[in-house]
């Protein structure tokens, strides 16, 4: 009987607070459903056996782990937000004579109820939609919908376990909050008025510095390999800077504005907004920082995965300037031997090679030691910037680039991806080889795709090509490449590509290495398809969290503004004026994080372009288009959420009555 009482009280609380609890339940269910679906899809992919399922399952598994962590954090965070709002209510219980252990029972019942409800709803929704989601993923991976999708018991188990633990943690947190609660203080909370926040100048300055450092780091990256190394640090700096500026920076700025009397007292809007914003920022800074970071994540994730997916074919072409690349060690008569092999193999598979491109090259990594010197010695690898060096004989270069250049002894043409060597007179390699740098040329087509690291291509006179190899410290062999397009039936071409390597080895050619666009195409589809699939999942997850935070912020703003609103009317502001001033503040609070997120994305754009180059994505305009489209779509969603939640806000503030 008594137990039922607490349960009934908990139920009543949930029903009464549906403005706050319904969104919470909805988001918890969505998050649980999302996690279940992701887990189920991963499990199905793991057990399924299709070409390329291994890497896909690996990517999905990583994604599932990260999604699980995020889900737990979001649920935990939202709950603490909810509990903060209920301080007064719990204080009242206490005044009305409930002991803390009684309140604890109510809270226990509430958490158990919400946990059970959202688990149930989430799992049901996940099971219903799971098959559909799986089909969507197969479509993104461009696989036929032939795979069986069942309800994996392990997914059910993992999801239930994860979120039960999650809700237990939530429960413990609530009880801990209750323990520390001081009922009288809680009851008075609203009336006492909050202390004005201090301006923390040092933290504000630190925010400017960290954000600036992050931005500069992002803007000064030169090469994709550098971008990958720097990206993480830049992200950490920007996140730290964002939080510092939202918390300390905003208040410092507002206080500066308030000190400027001409500005502050000059217009009623400035006067009311500046002082109002100081309090708003104090209460909301962290939440707004969260919205900003989450929004940035959404924008970056979606823009890059979508553009990678859309640009798949183009990236393939960047990575493969010819359908098939046949590389092997150079040697006597290698060109005729390879040509004969390819012709014979092509005839066997009813395909025809065309646009053949062949060249000898010497490729090795080298370290830039001093101003004009490189070293290819292994022991120097840690001591400077790494360059990929490609040496070509002049005749091969002239043939492939359709040029008729000539070089005198000891001279070289050069091309590079990022560094400008124009000011160098000579270039010294391993202290032995000294060459004079002549004209800068465009890198030949077969090197165009290799721009992940900084590279330099040297074209040397034919008779100095072999001596260059001999003077080199690094033990690299000259390789011979025979690259071509294929004509014929799609399936024949794929089989040709897959078997050419074995045929080459059989023919006794050394160091055979074949790259085929046909087998890579599948890998690309798998990789970018699964990345996009994960991207969409994360975007939904982040969007749920963002929407939820916006909603709860609106509610808490509403309660705070109600009193202020009435007073301002009494001291001689018209309802319209008050509405526009307060509406302006609320708008600022909500669109500040979005603007900051867009700024972050804009600054990150160049470095993201570089990172995407690692995935052979070089179409900057496509990425720009995707980014703009994603920003637009997200802004529309944001506006929609804002408008929808603003209704709750206005009903709390009650603009109708004075």
């Amino acid at each position, binding site marked *: 009987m008594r137990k039922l009482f607490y349960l009934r009280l908990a139920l009543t609380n949930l029903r009464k607070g549906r403005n706050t609890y319904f969104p919470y339940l909805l988001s918890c269910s969505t998050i649980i459903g999302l996690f279940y679906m992701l887990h189920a899809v991963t499990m199905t992919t793991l057990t399924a056996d299709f070409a390329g399922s291994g890497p896909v399952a690996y990517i999905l598994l990583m994604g599932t782990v990260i999604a699980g962590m995020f889900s737990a954090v979001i649920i935990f965070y939202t709950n603490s937000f909810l509990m903060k709002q209920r301080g007064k209510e719990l204080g009242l219980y206490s005044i009305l004579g409930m002991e803390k252990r009684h309140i604890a029972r109510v809270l226990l019942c509430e958490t158990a109820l919400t946990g059970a409800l959202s688990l149930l709803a989430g799992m049901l929704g996940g099971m219903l939609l799971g098959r559909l989601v799986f089909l969507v993923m197969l479509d993104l991976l461009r696989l036929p919908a032939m795979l069986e999708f069942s309800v994996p018991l392990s997914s059910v188990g993992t999801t239930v376990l994860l979120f039960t633990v999650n809700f237990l943690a939530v429960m413990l947190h609530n009880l801990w909050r209750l323990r520390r609660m001081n009922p009288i203080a809680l009851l008075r909370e609203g009336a006492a008025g909050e202390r004005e926040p201090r301006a923390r100048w040092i933290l504000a300055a630190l925010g400017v510095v960290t954000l600036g450092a992050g931005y500069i780091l992002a803007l000064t990256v030169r090469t994709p390999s550098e971008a990958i190394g720097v990206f993480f640090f830049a992200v950490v700096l920007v996140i730290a800077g964002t939080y510092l500026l939202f918390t300390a920076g905003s208040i410092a700025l507002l206080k500066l504005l308030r000190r400027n009397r001409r500005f502050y007292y000059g217009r009623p809007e400035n006067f009311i907004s500046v002082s109002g914003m100081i309090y708003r920022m104090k209460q909301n800074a962290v939440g707004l920082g969260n919205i900003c970071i989450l929004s940035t994540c959404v924008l970056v994730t979606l823009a890059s995965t979508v553009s990678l997916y859309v640009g798949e074919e183009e990236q393939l072409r960047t990575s493969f300037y010819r359908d098939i690349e046949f590389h092997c060690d150079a040697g006597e008569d290698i060109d005729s031997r390879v040509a004969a092999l390819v012709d014979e193999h092509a005839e066997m598979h009813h395909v025809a090679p065309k646009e053949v491109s062949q060249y000898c090259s010497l490729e090795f990594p080298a370290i830039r030691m001093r101003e004009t010197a490189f070293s290819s010695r292994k022991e120097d690898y840690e001591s400077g910037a790494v360059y990929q060096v490609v040496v070509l004989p002049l005749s091969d270069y002239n043939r492939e680039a359709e040029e008729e250049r000539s070089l005198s002894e000891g001279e070289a043409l050069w091309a590079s991806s990022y560094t400008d060597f124009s000011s160098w007179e000579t270039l010294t390699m391993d202290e032995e080889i000294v060459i004079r740098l002549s004209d800068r040329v465009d890198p030949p087509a077969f090197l165009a795709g290799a721009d992940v690291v900084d590279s330099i291509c040297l074209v040397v006179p034919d008779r100095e090509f072999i001596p260059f190899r001999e003077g080199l410290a690094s033990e690299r062999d000259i390789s011979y490449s025979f690259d071509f397009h294929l004509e014929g039936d799609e399936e024949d071409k794929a089989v040709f590509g897959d078997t050419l390597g074995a045929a080459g080895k059989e023919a006794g050619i050394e160091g055979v290495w074949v790259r085929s666009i046909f087998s890579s195409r599948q890998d690309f589809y798998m990789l970018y398809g699964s990345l996009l699939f994960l991207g969409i999942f994360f975007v939904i997850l982040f969007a749920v969290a963002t929407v939820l935070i916006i909603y709860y912020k609106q509610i808490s703003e509403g309660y705070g503004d109600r009193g202020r609103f009435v007073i301002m009317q*009494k001291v001689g502001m018209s309802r319209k004026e008050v509405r526009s001033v307060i509406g302006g503040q609320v708008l600022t609070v909500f669109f500040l994080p979005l603007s900051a997120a867009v700024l972050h994305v804009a600054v990150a754009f160049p470095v993201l372009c570089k990172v995407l180059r690692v995935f052979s994505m070089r179409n900057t305009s496509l990425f720009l288009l995707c980014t703009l489209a994603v920003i637009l779509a997200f802004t529309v969603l944001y506006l929609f959420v804002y408008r929808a939640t603003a209704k709750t806000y206005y009903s709390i503030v009650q603009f109708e009555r004075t």
Partner: protein
Amino acid sequence: MPMLTANKLKKVYTTRFGGHMVQALTDVTFTVEEGEFVAIMGESGSGKTTLLNILATLDRPTEGQVLLDGMDLTAVGEGELAVFRRENLGFVFQDFNLLDTFSLEDNILLPLVLSHCPYEEMYARLSPLARDLSLTPLLKKFPYEVSGGQKQRAAVARALITGPKLILADEPTGALDSRATAQLLMLFEEIGARGQTILMVTHSARAASHAGRVLFIRDGCVFHQLYRGRMSGEDFYQKIADTLAVLCSGEGA
């Protein structure tokens, strides 16, 4: 010509449910001369608050008119009401109604900022006022840092700073302790002596005894009025108390 004239004011409310008609004011007529300090007394439900709301232009009468300095308040358009209120009326409320986001200084300056007053002039008006109300050392403090009496003094300063024709005070001592109450009433008397017209709604005989005249309202009508004349505060208080006793006993209605 009187500063304020209330002429045959009538207010009828229709309750939201059931369309029940409630007559809050039946027929209220009175005048207030410039520089007068008038208290309005009455029981809860007597129509005091309705009357004050109408005088404050927060509400409109069903019938009758209010003239402030010869201007008909009922004829002021909805759009100009806020400006009118700001420029002609000063308010002092029971619960102070100070904004917690502003320092006392900014709370006092609020009406001037709303009227786009240049800030040099704001300060020129603020400093003598703050000195008179002994608020000078408190100006940079926030409402939650000062006592109730200090808050109410700031509210009075806010009402005075625009140089209003009329100060409307709604139970200004309701939330104050006895010492702060006495101080505030002395302050009102002083302001009144300087020629400021004040209309104060109260149900405390002690508070009303500081006024120059007391109007008693019952059942939506002016039931009686008392002039202080040359009476001492204590005598006037006694007289008000006696009148209240009669008022409450229901005789003579």
